[in-house]
């Protein structure tokens, strides 16, 4: 695993929306392969916009966004704030959607779906409909759908923000294991300092509006993370440091 290869490179990218709102000041950002980078910041700081720029859902007003050839070919996947599942389709069909859209042959697609469901621990729920699942399980299905194409880069926009803390902690732990095992590169947006410390190899603190990167903190702890990490003195210290930075970032703007 070459930790030096660059997966995502954002150079002086900025975004001004058609209505004149400046969502993002010129921003520089590098994510290396195998890294889990988290963006934290007050709401409206442009975290989601930055993620959508990288996903290609929004075009930058200026600047450049580069993806490694590997991230481009094997693809990137986006996990939304909400599970964003089709309510009329079973979990299986939801997870198969990206393959169906690109015309992957049925038998091969079904193998991949089974594998993706295994990765998130949903094998027994393939035939269930989204409404029959808990919020956490719906999110797992959503992640399975993102993984089904075998992406190298995962963009996650506050995926567990709407879940209770217990569920969120479990999903964070499982995600950490999954990323280590599958050697995924992740760019993760969150409101939660604890989630950021737990998951990331690097945390970027953003300030609002217009958004820019305010501080950067490396979380020096081996991956995958275990639950025990949460109760260490290091975890507490890093959380406190980040809290301070976030408070400073918010002081920069009128509340």
């Amino acid at each position, binding site marked *: 695993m070459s930790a030096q290869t660059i997966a995502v490179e954002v150079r002086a990218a900025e975004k001004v929306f058609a209505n004149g709102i400046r969502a993002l000041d010129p921003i520089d950002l590098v994510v290396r392969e195998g890294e889990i980078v988290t963006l934290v910041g007050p709401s409206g700081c442009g975290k989601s916009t930055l993620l959508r720029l990288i*996903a*290609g*859902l929004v075009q930058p007003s200026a600047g450049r966004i580069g993806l490694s050839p590997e991230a481009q070919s094997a693809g990137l996947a*986006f996990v*939304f*704030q*909400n599970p*964003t599942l*089709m*309510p*009329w*389709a079973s979990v299986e069909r939801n997870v198969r*959607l*990206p393959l*169906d*859209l*690109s015309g992957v042959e049925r038998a091969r697609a079904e193998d991949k779906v089974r594998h993706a469901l295994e990765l998130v621990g949903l094998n027994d729920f393939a035939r269930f*409909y*989204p*409404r029959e699942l808990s919020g956490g399980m719906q999110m797992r299905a959503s992640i399975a759908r993102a993984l089904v194409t075998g992406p190298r880069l995962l963009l996650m926009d506050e995926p567990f923000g709407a879940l209770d803390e217990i569920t969120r902690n479990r999903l964070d732990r499982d995600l950490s294991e999954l990323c280590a095992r599958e050697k995924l590169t992740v760019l993760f947006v969150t409101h939660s300092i604890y989630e950021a410390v737990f998951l990331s190899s690097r945390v970027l603190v953003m300030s609002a509006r217009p958004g820019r990167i305010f501080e950067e903190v490396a979380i020096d702890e081996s991956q995958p993370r275990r639950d025990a990490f949460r109760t260490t003195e290091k975890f507490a210290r890093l959380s406190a440091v980040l809290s301070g930075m976030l408070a400073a970032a918010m002081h920069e703007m009128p509340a």
Partner: protein
Amino acid sequence: MSDRKWLQVGAPIAVGLAFVLVWHALVVINEVPPYIVPSPFLVMKTLAQDWGLLSGSLLVTLQVTGAALALAVVLGVSLSILFVQSRLIEASLLPYAVILQVTPLVAIAPLIIIWVDEPRTALVICATVASIFPVIANTTIGMRSVDPALLDLFRMYGASRMQTLMRLRIPSAAPYFFAGLRVAAALALIGAVVAEFVAGTGGTQSGLAYQILMAGLQLNIPRLFAALILITLTGIALFLLVTALARVSLRRWHESELPQER
């Protein structure tokens, strides 16, 4: 069946029976002549006696209503698909759909009947005009009310317009479509009846509305009531059919058809 279900089925039946009995009693006690208000039992007898005539008319009304509803669905859904593809098409055509909707059918029916030679076709056109709007309006809103995040997802995976339509817009629109269909079914029947009143087609091609018209002119009130009952039953049957269709299609996923769990 649970107690609750018995109540839901039994209570309306009890009310209906009571109504029929009171109706019969009032007619008998006040000696109301049958050409003003016939007793419900005379109506039933007439229905049986005139079944040959009335069943033929029922079939005509059913055919006109069914054909009109089918046309309204096919045309309405096609138009909605066009509307969703392009705002320009929607902006150009929607006002005319609204004009069709707001102009009372009774006012347009004579024109349609003059222009179209074949009477049955004219009736079908009238009933289609009467029933198409709810299909267009609801299906269009439904196809537009797609979860924007799902649209993003489809875009990200490079879905074609056709794929987005078939896999996303149409399934999203289904609950809205069925709500529209329920209204359209009732309007198709009303359209078929109103058009026939205006057209007054006679002979073997006549539907239930014509029987009502004729029975009224001949003061054959028991037959008028019998035909009226058949129209009502047709309306109820249509409603139940559409409801069942919606249930079968939406049961697994949409809130409107989920079983009530208490």
